[in-house]
């Protein structure tokens, strides 16, 4: 019974967050000082008729409420975010084309920095005060203090220009165009530097959280008991300490997706990785409001979904959460 109620609460919370984001988006683009009609008119390159047509397309000639709001909700639910100013194609189509590239980059990076970060954190906590612990902790703090894109610029100058072992940017080599296995190899080569940037930028946070969470657990009575029973170190660590210390890290992975999206925007820009991050950069440089709106909703939905999954996972992993 407790489980069902927990599930229901979490799903409802996620749903209302989504509703909030959608309403917020409407409010932002229509009621704030820069309302769309004025923003459209500000672009001097647009002839007056074009502006009038866009105003009609967006339904901006209708009253804000209920006309515009109802239209907007309907469009959003159907995934219709209008036509991109820059690409002259539906926003959804533009996003779809770029979607998997970002998933690929962020997915591989997340996998690497989560696993490595957790391992580093475990080793640091287990040998607290050792050279490894101090070294990795310092490294983590410096990584945390670094703008991701700056790290990207450094790696790019180092390993693509001064020592040219990796391509300067993009996803594939355009000439010659590779096929089959060579194509996969080619993409992998393009991925090395952006992935390395994201990994180095985010690994520290996981190491720090895992370290402090394991240090907390190591002070618990059941770890003492396990030790007192005469279990070997490896056994205490693997069976008793680490599984419990992993819990906060699960939440962090989800919460961090919000920041990771930010990292993707700047890192994809630096490496010209034509995914959603670079798309956001192009949209804000134009500025392409329909595209910005679409991306904002998409990123928010992704983060809300990730948080919901983390909450559900958390409930499964830690029975205490369900009861409380």
């Amino acid at each position, binding site marked *: 019974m407790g489980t069902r109620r927990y599930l229901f609460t979490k799903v409802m919370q996620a749903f209302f967050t989504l509703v909030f984001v959608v309403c917020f988006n409407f409010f932002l683009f229509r009621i704030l*000082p*820069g309302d769309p009609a004025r*923003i459209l008119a500000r672009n001097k390159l647009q002839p007056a008729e074009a502006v009038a047509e866009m105003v009609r397309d967006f339904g901006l000639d209708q009253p804000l409420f209920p006309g515009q709001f109802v239209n907007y909700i309907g469009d959003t639910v159907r995934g219709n975010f209008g036509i991109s100013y820059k690409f002259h194609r539906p926003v959804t189509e533009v996003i779809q084309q770029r979607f998997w590239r970002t998933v690929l980059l962020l997915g591989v990076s997340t996998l690497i920095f989560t696993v490595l970060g957790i391992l580093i954190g475990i080793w640091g906590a287990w040998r607290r005060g050792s050279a490894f612990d101090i070294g990795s902790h310092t490294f983590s703090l410096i990584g945390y203090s*670094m703008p991701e894109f700056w790290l990207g610029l450094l790696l790019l100058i180092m390993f693509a220009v001064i020592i040219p072992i990796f391509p300067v940017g993009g996803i594939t080599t355009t000439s010659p165009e590779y096929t089959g296995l060579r194509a996969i190899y080619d993409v992998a080569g393009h991925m090395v530097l952006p992935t390395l940037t994201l990994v180095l930028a985010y690994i520290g946070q996981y190491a720090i959280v895992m370290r402090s969470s394991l240090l907390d657990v190591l002070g618990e009575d059941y770890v003492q008991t396990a030790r007192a029973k005469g279990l070997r170190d490896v056994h205490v660590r693997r069976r008793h300490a680490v599984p419990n210390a992993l819990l906060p890290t699960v939440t962090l992975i989800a919460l961090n*997706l919000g920041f990771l999206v930010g990292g993707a925007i700047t890192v994809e820009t630096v490496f010209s990785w034509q995914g959603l991050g670079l798309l956001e950069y192009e949209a804000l440089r134009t*500025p392409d409001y329909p595209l910005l*709106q679409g991306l904002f909703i998409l990123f928010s939905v992704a983060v809300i979904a990730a948080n919901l999954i983390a909450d559900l996972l958390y409930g499964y992993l830690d029975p205490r959460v369900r009861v409380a």
Partner: protein
Amino acid sequence: MSTPSQVVGDIPKNARQIAWIRRRRALKRSWRTFRGSPMGMIGLVILTIFALTAVFAPLLAARSGLSPVTAPGQPFQPPSGQYWFGTDHQGRSVLTLVIWGSRVSLAIGLIATLISVFIGSIVGILAGFFGGWRDVSLMRLTDWFLVIPFLPLVIVLASVMGGGVGGGGLGLTAFVIGITSWPSSARLVRSQTLTVKERPYVERARALGASNWHLITRHILPNVGPIIFANTILIVAIAILSETTLAFLGFGDPNAISWGRVLDEAFGNGAVIAGNWWWVIPPGVAVVLVVLAFTLIGYALDEILNPRLRRR
């Protein structure tokens, strides 16, 4: 305002004086603990150097070095005895840019933090102190803002309010960062308020007929204050990072040199392809050092001022 008595043997005349004496002692005690933290002291030294650089920028590098018209050097020069960090695409010394950039980067970081902490403290105290439906609704709002991805939100706000890249100026950058980064401090302040609210002396004051205003300003705020302070220092780090990122993406006043702006210009003018490392490294190192300094100080303060950590 009564001045605290200087002589230790003096008998304090009223409650306010007693309070001041106690506060001064607590401050001294905290400072002694802080001095014992090597990390915190390293941060403080780094921060002092950068703060002095920002204040005395005109003495360290002539302002005329910022204008492309009066810049003394040739473009794209590698580091030399004359230009320690080389020059940029307009022949400006990168060292001059980094020195003057410290002003904008630090100022925006501080202003954004003030806005953020102000909102966060008010939301946190109101939610924690009054409880009930006010708590529930304020915390839901906080959670919503926590979940919305930070950079896309900032980008959308800055684009809509400033009318796109290059518009809006520095104030807008600080404002946007401030109004998006408050949720974490709101949560912290709320949880702290909840524990302070239940203490016996608050109950006593309430029983004596103290108003909510009196309780909040005289009992809750002074007790929550230290934690807000430690949190503030940590938020400055985040705000400076955010400013750097926003400037790199092209937001803010194009004429105000901040570290992020220097990186944006370097990236936009082919510093990467040309391998002009001297143009990219110094502003980034400055950001890392300052952010690291604030983070180290913040952690050190947190350990001193946060009772939960102190007990450990």
